[in-house]
């Protein structure tokens, strides 16, 4: 059927023309790997600001970085620190949780989260996270120190406070007199109350 064929050709040709019109240039797709140099530079600048105590300037940069690569724990933790320091405790908690999610081995996060909980008055949560951090790394002097403060000032469990201060002293070579003084003071209070 020559006529029909011809007709189909014409139709097809028409469609092709239309398709030709609709074509747009190919979209460049992003790669899964960051171009290390660029991101790290940004991170570096953000850290620089933090180092200089310019939290206000650091905050948006860190936020940007978490948005750009939420899989990195570092920016989350830094953001958590910024929030914590500026008394935005709920945001801080969330940021820390994110950091923990991205990297569960990063005990710095637990340390920071313990502080955030303490600031919120969630002393038991703080104790639990510190203890988790100790499970991760029982030798972390700083965690013992902080757990000691938590028991001392807040949970008012002087025994445990003394034990963690003592562990801190042990791990750091018994050189911090201030902490020694605290232990003796706590012991006195213990004796007084008994």
């Amino acid at each position, binding site marked *: 059927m020559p006529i029909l064929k011809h007709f189909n050709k014409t139709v097809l040709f028409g469609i092709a023309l239309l398709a030709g019109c609709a074509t747009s240039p190919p979209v460049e797709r992003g790669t899964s790997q960051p171009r290390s140099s660029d991101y*790290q530079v940004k*991170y570096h600048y953000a*850290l620089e600001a*933090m*180092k200089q*105590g310019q939290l206000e300037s650091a905050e948006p940069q860190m936020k940007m970085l978490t948005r750009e690569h939420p899989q*990195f*724990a*570092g*920016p989350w*933790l*830094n953001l958590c*620190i910024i929030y914590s320091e500026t008394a935005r405790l709920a945001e801080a908690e969330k940021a820390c949780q994110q950091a923990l999610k*991205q*990297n569960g081995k*990063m005990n*710095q996060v637990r*340390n*920071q989260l*313990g*502080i955030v909980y*303490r600031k919120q*008055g969630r*002393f038991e949560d703080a104790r639990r996270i510190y203890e988790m951090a100790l499970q991760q790394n029982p030798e972390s002097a*700083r965690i013992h*120190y*902080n757990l000691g*403060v*938590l028991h*001392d*000032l*807040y*949970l*008012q469990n002087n025994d445990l406070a003394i034990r963690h201060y003592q562990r801190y002293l042990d791990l750091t070579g018994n050189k911090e007199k201030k902490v020694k003084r*605290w232990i003796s*003071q706590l012991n006195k209070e213990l004796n007084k109350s008994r």
Partner: protein
Amino acid sequence: MSRRWLLYLTIVLVSGGLPLQSGAMSEQRADLLNRELLYYQYKGDGFSAISRYRAGLANGEIPAGQEKWTRLAAQLYASWGLFDEAKELYSSSAAAQTPQQRAINWLSLGKAYFERQHYAEAVAAFERVGIRQLPKQLEYERLLMMGVALYQLDNFAGSSSSLWSIHPTSKLYPFARINIGMGSIRIGSWPGGISGLSSIKKRIGIDVEADPQFADRLNTVFGYILLYEEYSGSNTAYGKVSMHGFTTPKKKGYRDALEMLRAVPDKGLYANKSLLGQAWIAIDTNELERAREILEGLGKKDPRHLVVQEAKLALPYVLEREGDVARAISQYRSAVSFFENERNRLDSLLQQLDSGELDNSFLTMRRDSAAQNPLTAYLPEMLLAPLPHRMLGDFEDINRLRVQLDEWKNQLAGSASLMADLSRQQVALDDLHVRTVKMLRSQAGEQLTERRRRINHYLNQARYGFAELYGRQQRGGVDPREALVAYHAYLKEAPEVSAEVRKHIVGRIADLELELGEEAEEIVPAAKVSGVAAYLAELEKNPQDAGNEDVLYKLARAYEQQGETTKALDALQKLIRRYPNSSYVAEARFRVAEGLFIQQNYQQAASTYDGILNNKKDNAYYYHALYKRGWSLFKLGRYQQALDDFFAVLEHYDSAGDLNSRANQELYADAQRAINMCFVNMKGPASVSEFFARNQYHRYIETVYQSLADYYLAQERFSDAVQTWSTYVQHYPNSQYSPRYLLKIVDTWKQQGFEKNYVAAQERLINDYGLHAPFWNNHKPEQFSDVRAALKQNTRLLAEHYHIKARESGNKSDYVQAANWYRKYLKNYPDEKDAAELNYLYAEILEEAGQYRNAVAEYNAVVKKYPQFAMRADAGYAAVLLTFQQAESGPRQEREQWRKQSYETALNFAKLFPGDGRASDVLLHLAEGSYRRGEYPEAITLARRVVTQGSRQQKQKALLIIGHSQFETGKYLSAEQTYGTLLQTGRVAKNERREINKRMALSIYRQGEAAQKTGNLSAAVKHFLRVREEVPASSIVATAEYDAAAGLISMKNWPAAIEVLERFREEQPGHKLQHEVTRKLALAYTSSNEPIKAAQEFERLAVVESDAEKRSAALWKAAELYDSNNYLDQAAKLYKQYVKEYPAPFDVAMEARQKLVALYSKTGDDKRRDYWRKQIIDVDRKAPVSNERSRYLAMTAAVEIADAKYRDYQAVQLTIPLKKSLRKKKKLLKQAIDAYALVAGYGDAATITRAGYQIGEIYYDFARALMKSERPRGLNDEELEQYDILLEEQAFPFEEKALEFYRSNRIRITDGLYDEWIRKSLERLAEIFPARYSRPEKQDAYIEALQ
């Protein structure tokens, strides 16, 4: 012959009117002022025209001496009647002009004179016109006017010659010929006149058709001329007429005359004259009835009209010819008195005229007043004569001019020259006035004298006719004395009496005087020649002369005439004795007997009469004697014998037929009277019947009975009269007189008012001589139309009698009688005109007797049988009413049947009499019935018919029924429309209007309900709203409005809903739905975001709601709305009100207090705020049951109070002198601590930590304040150090106290508590005692790691 003379007079009268003129007017030149002047002139306001002219002349508008204006002025003057001025102007103008112009001037002047009817002056002016100086047309006009003027001056020859000069081709020629003809007739030249007129007669309809009166007049004149000719014989004028084309045989003249006279219309100037002419023709051709009709008709017209007066004379003449002597005599008599009256009137009028009494009435005469005054009635007619008519016109003008001149003089008092002019005019006018009055008087006098002459002539003609008739018919009811008077008056007053007539009249007078005897003398005292002396002398001269019997006889007569009766008798007896064979003896004997009779010597008189009667019967005195003997016997009481004589007298005259003389007639009548008197003096009717049983005078039976009855009637002895008739009827039941006598009995009783007898007689008449009585076997009904009519009438009367009686008495028997008589009548006279009426009455009596079914049947029969009967509709209506009545109040078991019948009857009535107003009533009644029974469609159908045909009121009622029916059947739209129509037609009674309004409103409302049911909410709302618009006064307006609002709310049309609700509130104060309206308004305002208005509504509700809960809720809502919209005062007020009015439920009241606290916090009114805080605390404390919220609120209040106290305390600085400020601060310290202790008292963890912290703060503050307190001046370093130590010592316990409170808060962490206050306490601890409590965690400042 008098009639000939009359005719002549009439002709002269007709032809003597105003001569005919052509109406042609010369053309006027056009010019503005000219036109203005002419305008005035045509308006008849000549005075203004002249004034305007003179003004124009004075102010130079009109150039003096210019020909055109001079002529115009002349015309004006002339037309105003100022001929001297006109003449002067014409002459002055004429001098300077051509002969033609002069001719025209003279013509104009002549015409002016002519028009003012100054004929002599007119002729003089016309004669001044030169020969052949005028155009032809004007010349003919001049000739015509001159001819007419001369005619008026009685110069017929001159007139004729002038008129003959008009050429036959001129259109004025016919007028000329007529006037020539008239003139000829005036001078008695009939042939000339007739030939002239007949030649014109041919041209009537061609040239002069435009003037109908001309044709009428010509017809009249010509008719009369022909009539006159015919009357006086064809030998004279009529023969000549024939030569001019009227080739008619004799008597055709009458026909022609009649034809012409008939052509004159019945109304108009010549109608009467024409009719009179026709009457004369009718008389001559012996159509007397026609003549009489015409004359009678004329006689009813204006009695002052000459023709009418002649008709008054002609009428008795016709009657006389017809043989109706009695009427002729009475008409003559009334004519005589009429004409005498009129003549007297004219005489007194003439007298008044001469004495000048009427001068003043000349002016008012044209208006009808003179005609209405019987004294001056002839004056206006006098005005129709040409000369006085003209003079009166002048006179009126002169008077008007005089009045106006007076006025003018006042206005123009300043202008001397005009004044002089005016004064001159005035003098001339006054003179003219006097002269005119004189002339008017003499002219009027002449006219009236002529009229008097005519009337006098008529009068005497009437007298003569009257007197003559008496002679021919002595017993025509005429008193011979009247005739005598008439003859005498005629002789004395008739103007011309021929010798022949005089001789006849004198003879008649002698006869009458003889007949009247002495009486005549009283009427006409005439010298009586007494012959007694002469006769006595003769007897003495020749005592034995054979001729003395003659002398004796005459002597006796002479004595008799002188009243010497005895001497007369002596003379007669002497005669009888001396000359027993004398031809005078019989008379002498009779006279003697008469004398004896007069002397009441009846016995002797009777025997003397016997003497005469013994002689032979051809004796001339025989029957007179017989008659007189009868009287003598009567006087002697011998009635039976007297009767024999009297009947013999009657028998004689009847058989001899000798009753022609009056004397015989009287005698005969007297005999009858005597017979009657005999029976009266005997035993009345009984004697009569006895007499006729014995004697053979049967031909007199009826006369005798009737005379006797008449006698009794005259004596008012009615029973005797009735007895007389009754006796006759008993004896001769089959006589044709019997039913008639019964009729007389009926009439007599009727007239005398003996009802019982009357009814009995009627019944006897109908029972004995009714249509089926044996009497009619022998008599032909057609000869008894009177009886038959009476039968019929009395049947009807009886029916009516019993009808009335029944109504009065209520007796059943009377009803039965009445019904029977009606029935009888209807049976016997079904085709009579009044059968319908009787049938109607029959139906009525049946109804009255309670026979309703029959009554209805009869009413219906009336309707059916008598289609022409005027009361047919009434009958139909009566049937309807009766059925209605019975259907409503008849016996219960029959009502339904009656109702059906009433329905049929009524519908039939409405069908038969659609135009009858009651048809609509009937339909209305039916419709009402149907409506009452709930048959609404039927009611509507019936009522609709009323709407199309009923009166306005009926329509209204019908509409009401329709409307109600539609309403009842739920057709509310239709009902509304109907009610609307009803209300629009207006004039609805107040209470009805109220009801209609109510229904109308309901109709509209129901439409709304219906729409609502179908879910068409907006339509429903429209209807509801319409209720108020259409029927604002209706009681359901409120409901409708409310429903409308509800609908609008459903539709969420808030603005509209608000409008309706607000209106409702305003218009329906006190309505029970007002509260609901308020609720709805609250909703609507809330919904349409008008919170304040909503709040106001809630506020209202807070008052009016019946339920306390709702009231409180509304109050709360209102307060809340005010509060949230910053109407804080309002809000505060309402919250307070709430607290006051609704302390329970406790918690809400507490919230209200809390609101007040919040509110006053907002306004900064601390005092009030704290008051309410304390209130909260107090109330909470006193509450029997603890409530968490309340406690919270109280606690919060306590906290806030405490905080405030704390702030107050904190604000106090310790300054010098320290003691004072210290005391103050300490005092406040205590208060603040107490306040916080109170807060702590609530036992709540949060408040405790808070109170703890705050108390800590208070102490800490005090410690720090001490340390910071102002140091006393003038202390050296050492002293200052000492002082500082001292302060420290003082401060320390406070610091300790503070620490204690902070620490106790810290310990609470171990209880699982941690809050702001604990945190702050920890901070304070770290601050005051850092060695123990400041131990920060170790943390990263940042993290380098990325992952």
